[in-house]
């Protein structure tokens, strides 16, 4: 079962800053198959975040193509890209980015409200996820009442809410202490095992990167 979720071909991204072109990505060819756990490491400024943003359909490449399940995404309209992110991808950020006015539970149900999953199912799914992530007694807490580790777990639950094919995590442990980092890393590994969800994990931490089944390294906008 080697179904390809995402495939990039000769992907490039050039930023023009003060009249100078910066090649943030320079000919990236990457295939991500279903259930795969990929980690990407590399020096600062090597283009890891840029790559993740492009794969996450958050911005447009300067050259090359991205296909999602065989479809060239450059042909999709904005609303269709939104829907792909909403239903097929989960995002995990270094700074958690939870909605401050929502409780943990509401943060997790929110993406399902957008996809119009009925309330009952929404709540059931959110509770199951939060329980699975060890947050049973934190469901009704607001983000400011949660520890960093708890916040990131809520964010992971939110990313999983619409049962995506792919999780994109940009330095998810960047703001966590070493114990919590271990916890979250182990959790990602378990989720990958249990749900067969593909993960692309960008990290500076080699230990974290080792959790992946495929480790990639990026230098100067290229994959080694």
């Amino acid at each position: 079962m080697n179904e390809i979720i995402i495939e990039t071909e000769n992907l490039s991204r050039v930023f023009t800053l003060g009249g100078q072109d910066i090649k943030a990505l320079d000919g990236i060819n990457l295939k991500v198959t279903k259930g795969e756990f990929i980690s990407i490491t590399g020096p600062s400024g090597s283009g890891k975040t840029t790559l993740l943003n492009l794969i996450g359909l958050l911005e447009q490449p300067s050259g090359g193509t991205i296909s999602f399940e065989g479809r060239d995404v450059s042909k999709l309209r904005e609303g269709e890209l939104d829907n792909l992110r909403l239903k097929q991808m989960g995002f995990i950020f270094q700074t958690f980015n939870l909605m401050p006015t929502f409780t943990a539970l509401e943060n997790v149900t929110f993406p399902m409200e957008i996809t119009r999953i009925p309330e009952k199912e929404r709540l059931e799914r959110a509770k199951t996820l939060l329980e699975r992530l060890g947050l049973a007694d934190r469901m009704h807490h607001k983000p400011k009442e949660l520890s960093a580790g708890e916040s990131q777990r809520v964010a992971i639950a939110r990313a999983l809410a619409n049962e995506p094919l792919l999780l994109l995590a940009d330095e998810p442990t960047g703001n966590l202490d070493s114990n919590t980092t271990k916890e979250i890393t182990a959790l990602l590994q378990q989720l990958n095992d249990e749900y067969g969800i593909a993960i692309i994990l960008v990290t500076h931490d080699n230990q974290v990167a080792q959790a992946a089944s495929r480790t990639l390294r990026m230098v100067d906008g290229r994959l080694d």
Partner: protein
Amino acid sequence: MLLTKLAVRNLTRRRARSILTIIGVGIAIAFTVTILSISEGLMVSFENSIAKQGADIIIVPKEAEAYPYPDVAAFVGSFPEELLDEIEQVDNVKATFPVFTAIPMDFMPEKPGAIPMLYGVTPDYFPEVVPYLELAEGRFIEDSDEYTLVAGSGIAMVAELSLGGSLEFRGKSFKVVGILKSSGSLDDGMIYTPLKGLQEAYSKPGQLTFVPVKVNDISQAEATAREISDTWPIISAQTQEAMVDKFTDLMGIVEAANVGLSTVALLIGILFILSTMIMAVGERVKEIGTMRAIGVHRRFIFQLVITESLITSLIAGVIGCISGYLLSLAITYILAEFFGLTYFAPLVNARIFLTGIGIAIVVGALAGLYPAWRISKTNIVQALHYE
């Protein structure tokens, strides 16, 4: 539903700021509602009197020509009633109704608004000229009356008149024989007496200040009025229509002022909400970037901001309408209690409420547009890294 829930959450997040905005916009709307209700009250009061009168032509002394209203005529001059016999000979004239008007300036010194307009009339004045007047109790003036009076409801209330009571004007005592129902017009502040009695009291026997005229052919009223004015230089005749037109012109000016005022309220409201929403949206860039990354559509973000803006302005609209209404009640009370002015009251009606709410909706929609548009089009990646 989700939009509303989110919008309310966002608004309650900065409670003080939301409340201040609502108060600001609410005040603007409250003032609009109050002013509109005052001018509506004025308009209805005039409409109920001048426009309903059964006369086709109004005759006043030449001196009162520019302002052919009985209250002005009462001050500036008079003309002998024998003139009416001659005027009735004019072809188109069907009937004339002699009136002597006076204004007792010293009526109730402590309540300057309570000064009534005294109308000395003949009995046929009631059915022919002011057929809309109805009695609350008692009767109208009769032929045999000398010193009697029929009081408007407002003046009866302020002066605490009742049947059988009396009022003194220029040393003559007039007995109360009738009290009128409120007509929501200037008539509420009038006192009707027999013509002769009032002329006697004011030492102007045989003098008139104001004469409504009925004609046979209304289409010729204007020519007839001109003929009367030209034939007798000491009087001036104008058609009722011309007077209503003047009144309509005046109301046009009031209406224009109202539109101006509503526009100012609208602009103030827009500025208030616009600045609040720009702030509110500015501090949520990262959050909105996150929502977009998750897959929330641009349109949803746009609607969310508009919803927040609309909720703010609608609450302000409702509060503004209610306080505007209360303010106009207070004005009514003050006018009656301290000035004895009961024949004019601010009027709050559905149209005014709808104007208030309408302003609120327009304010909310317009003020939300720019912030909604700006935030919904921000670049997701930049928004995610916005601090």
